């Protein structure tokens, strides 16, 4: 193609010259890996032969009978639900509290955004230190309040480990919700509130009848974006518990990663990651449709 021809295409109103770099990169990044993953899920690495061997549906059958997979799915859903509910409720409460022009509140909002630039892996490591049974500061506070026996290591007790991880998650991402909800609250029109005040509505009534319905789009966007991230939780569990004790904090992403890179079950790991992908896609699309989220 000559230079003038290229130029003519570039100045025409066809969208393709503009979208081509994006499309080609996304194809490389999403479609090709997806096909590769599907191909991989029908194979398995055999260390003795040092090669991938076609195994048909064996990985998919194994998945069905694998109690650790179902366990990991359960852990992921529990983690997802608890974190999402806590982050929304806490986030909304803090946003309502800080949604006022009071001394220092501008600085407080800036402090809240600090948590968002900390790599989750580092936050996880730091909470690991704070939850240490011998010298952790969180352990110390819980002891002082009489909520925890000094001898109990939070992250090594199967009934507490997930809660220990969730503390880091909720600490880091509640401010995300606060900032989003605060932006939403600021964009609300004042007129309905003025009318409600004249009618003598209580603040609880105003919250339920006015704020919540008008905020529904903002809440839906926050739930969608956070939900996608929560379902693929990896960083916190990887650095804080590595899935343990036992399998009490195994998330689906961690299980898929370990099968592939620790146990060299390449095909099975790919199968697990495909299942994880399918679940996120289905849930997110159902949510987008149900709540009419648009970009």
């Amino acid at each position, binding site marked *: 193609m000559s230079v003038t021809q290229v130029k003519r295409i570039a100045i025409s109103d066809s969208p393709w010259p503009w979208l081509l770099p994006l499309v080609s990169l996304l194809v490389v990044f999403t479609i090709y890996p997806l096909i590769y*993953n599907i191909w*991989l899920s029908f194979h398995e690495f055999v260390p003795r032969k040092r090669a991938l061997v076609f195994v048909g549906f064996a990985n998919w059958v194994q998945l069905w009978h694998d109690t650790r997979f179902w366990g990991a799915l359960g852990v992921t859903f529990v983690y997802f639900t608890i974190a999402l509910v806590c982050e929304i409720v806490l986030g909304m409460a803090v946003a309502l509290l800080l949604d006022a022009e009071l001394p220092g509140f501008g600085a407080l909002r800036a402090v809240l955004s*600090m948590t*968002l630039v900390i790599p989750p892996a580092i936050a996880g490591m730091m909470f690991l*230190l704070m939850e240490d049974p011998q010298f952790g500061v969180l352990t110390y506070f819980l002891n002082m309040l009489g909520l925890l026996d000094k001898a109990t290591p939070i992250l090594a007790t199967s009934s507490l480990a997930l809660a220990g991880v969730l503390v880091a998650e909720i600490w880091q991402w509640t401010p995300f919700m606060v900032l989003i909800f605060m932006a939403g609250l600021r964009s609300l029109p004042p007129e309905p509130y003025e009318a409600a005040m004249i009618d003598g509505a209580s603040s609880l009534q105003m919250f339920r009848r006015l704020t919540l319905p008008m905020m529904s789009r903002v809440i839906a966007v926050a739930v969608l974006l956070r939900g996608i991230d929560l379902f693929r939780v990896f960083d916190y569990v990887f650095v804080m518990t590595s899935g343990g004790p036992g399998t009490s904090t195994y998330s689906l992403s961690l299980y898929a990663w370990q099968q592939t890179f620790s146990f060299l079950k390449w095909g099975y790991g790919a199968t697990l990651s495909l299942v994880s992908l399918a679940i996120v896609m289905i849930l997110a699309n159902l949510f987008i449709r149900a709540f009419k989220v648009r970009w």
Partner: protein
Amino acid sequence: MPQSKSMRIFRTLAGWLVVAFFFFPIFFWTSVAFRDAKDIFSWPPKFFEFEPTVRNFEQVFGISLGFGFGTQETVNPGGGNFYMAPRLWDSIVVASMSTVLAIMVATLAAYCLSRMQFRGRHEFVNWVLSTRMMPPVAVAIPMFFIFKQLNLLDTYLGLILVHGLMNLPLAVLLLKSFFDDIPAEIDESALLDGASRWTIFKRIVLPMAKGGIAASAVLCFIFSWTEFLFALTLTQTGIKTVPVVSSTFVTSIGTAWGNMAALGAAAIVPAFIVVLLVQRHLVRGLTMGSLKQ
């Protein structure tokens, strides 16, 4: 809404208390970065009453700050010294180059999606959004094998590509929302004057959207800076980003908490300063442009 004076005071105090609660871990970790082992491993934990030292920073970055205190020799639990300065450099290279990649590709696409009408535009936006939903592990596993064949494992180029691609949906949707804010009439009158789309894009839209492009770049940078799974999977020894390094401080002999905290503090401060610069656009970025402020 008008509030009574006591209510205002109560609300101010409650607000400060809540934020102090969220700030406490950051304060505590930063203080750990300035402690010797004996002040880290103490029960009850110390909050203020420790001897400050900069040794953790000196060890992590392999430099001497020469402040005089903290001169006695100690050995890290893992043995030997950590020289993290090159690792910090790895993070800076990967995050900035992947940002350049994402922003360059995304501005073109975002301008098109903001201004041109074509069939399937809405579906195309949804497709871009859906790529953001891919769990990193579902991409990292095939990418590991593809990179292995292409000799891209453990290279800057490989990680830059993956981080840049990871940030594309964010950058496209966010930039589209910034371009949507610029009235399309400007483009149309320029088109009538005979300017090409490319000229309009270069001469009018890009300069007008400078602030928005800067904000998008900062967010891409932060997401690459904090990313863990791809960096862990696609690099081995040649490149280590800051989050990956942090996870290696746990050794069978013990954990180098002081060094860990020093690295953490050093990683947070620059990222936070950058975020403060774009705070006005932060929410918009976090929601990929779906909320405006």
